[in-house]
């Protein structure tokens, strides 16, 4: 059965034999995002190198100027990267290669995607600046990255574990030197897990929106107030 309206499936290779996507994007060496050139022009030595993979641009930057670069990408009218998609890290099996911390940025207005990477030597201290003052959404992303990789985000107001429990003793599970089954015996793991208090993990501030009421959008405030008037409840103060 063939679908007549769909284009013929691509074999995944360009005519010259190199791999490419159905839309003709090459594996390596495609066109760079215009932001990469703008960054090189604006920051110069702070940019290590730029590369394009499957049509996505990756810019390697120095850790000292990362915060400044992210701030500029967010604020500069010609860039406007208004959405932080993800903060994560990569550790390679090759012990010589550094750990990479990755920021995925997206400019919704310009329809651009940019990947920033910082290389950290494994033997050094794994500290990068937090971008939480630029993107509020970086809060939990950075906590997750800290939880899994042990990378410290300098300037994060509340850097603690988010997926694992707070008294987790075994280290950082996504590091290559972490054994898949954990470091302790199963009985010891179970004993420590049962010793946690499920209620102590959440502060009431995280569970209530009462304090955030004034910073909510206007329509949401109206709706909450209307609900309160309708039900007569002591809802949000």
């Amino acid at each position, binding site marked *: 059965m063939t679908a007549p309206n769909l284009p013929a499936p691509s074999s995944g290779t360009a005519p010259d034999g190199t791999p490419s996507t159905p839309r003709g994007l090459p594996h390596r060496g495609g066109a760079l995002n215009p932001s990469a050139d703008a960054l090189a022009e604006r920051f110069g030595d702070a940019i290590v190198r730029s590369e394009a993979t499957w049509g996505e641009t990756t810019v390697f930057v120095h850790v000292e100027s990362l915060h400044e670069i992210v701030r500029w990408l967010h604020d500069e009218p010609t860039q406007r990267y208004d959405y932080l998609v993800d903060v994560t890290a990569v550790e390679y099996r090759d012990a010589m290669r550094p750990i990479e911390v990755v920021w995925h940025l997206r400019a919704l207005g310009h329809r651009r995607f940019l990947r920033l990477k910082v290389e950290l030597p494994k033997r050094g201290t794994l500290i990068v600046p937090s971008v939480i003052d630029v993107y509020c959404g970086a809060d939990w992303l950075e906590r997750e990255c800290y939880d899994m990789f042990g990378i410290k985000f300098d300037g994060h107001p509340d850097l603690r574990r988010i997926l694992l429990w707070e008294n987790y003793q075994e280290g950082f*599970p996504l590091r290559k030197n972490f054994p898949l*089954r954990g470091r302790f015996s*199963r009985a010891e*793991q*179970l*004993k420590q897990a049962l010793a946690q208090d499920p209620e102590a993990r959440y502060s009431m501030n995280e569970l209530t929106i009462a304090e955030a009421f004034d910073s909510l959008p206007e329509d949401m405030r109206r709706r909450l107030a209307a609900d309160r008037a309708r039900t007569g409840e002591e809802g949000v103060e």
Partner: protein
Amino acid sequence: MGVTPALDRRVVPVDPKSQDGWVTSRLDFLVNWARAGSLWPMPFGTACCAIEFMSTAASRFDLSRFGMERLSYSPRQADVLICAGRVPYKLAPVIRRIYQQMPQPKWVISMGACASTGGMFDNYAVVQGIDTIIPVDVYVPGCPPRPEALMHGIIMLQQKVMRDRLRDGTLHTEIEPDPTSQLYIPPSRIDELSEPFGNSVNQTRSNP
């Protein structure tokens, strides 16, 4: 002598020719019949097994045929804890507390490979079988089990309930975990139960 003896109300007069309205049975049987026919399940669904559980509860497979259509989302009104899905270590104290909040008599169905053994998740984050945390009555194999398999497990649980005897009080006394380690079974047993096997790294059981 014209004196009739006083009526002994402890003796039931039986007229062999008219036995309407009388049934004799064992109290055990009646109590167990009532219990087995109206088990209220507390679903603890964490993964894809919960989808199969929903299918079991829905109209095609119709859990209410077993008197279980009243799903209890509060452990205090539940009889059966159905753990459907993998349980990470972070949830271990939660399911433990849910189990301890259920009133006696209570039973546990471990539904699926992950709840029973950890399944394919032989890693740092997943409990290797919930029987290391709470006592389990019925294990339902499958990944995930079909609704028929869960119903088979439920029928097995009903048969187990029917075998209960009122004289045997040990069945329905609350088991207290060891106060120091908070474990129901000794640590060596837990390590033995969690011992990896099958096609996983560092095999210890299936090595020749």
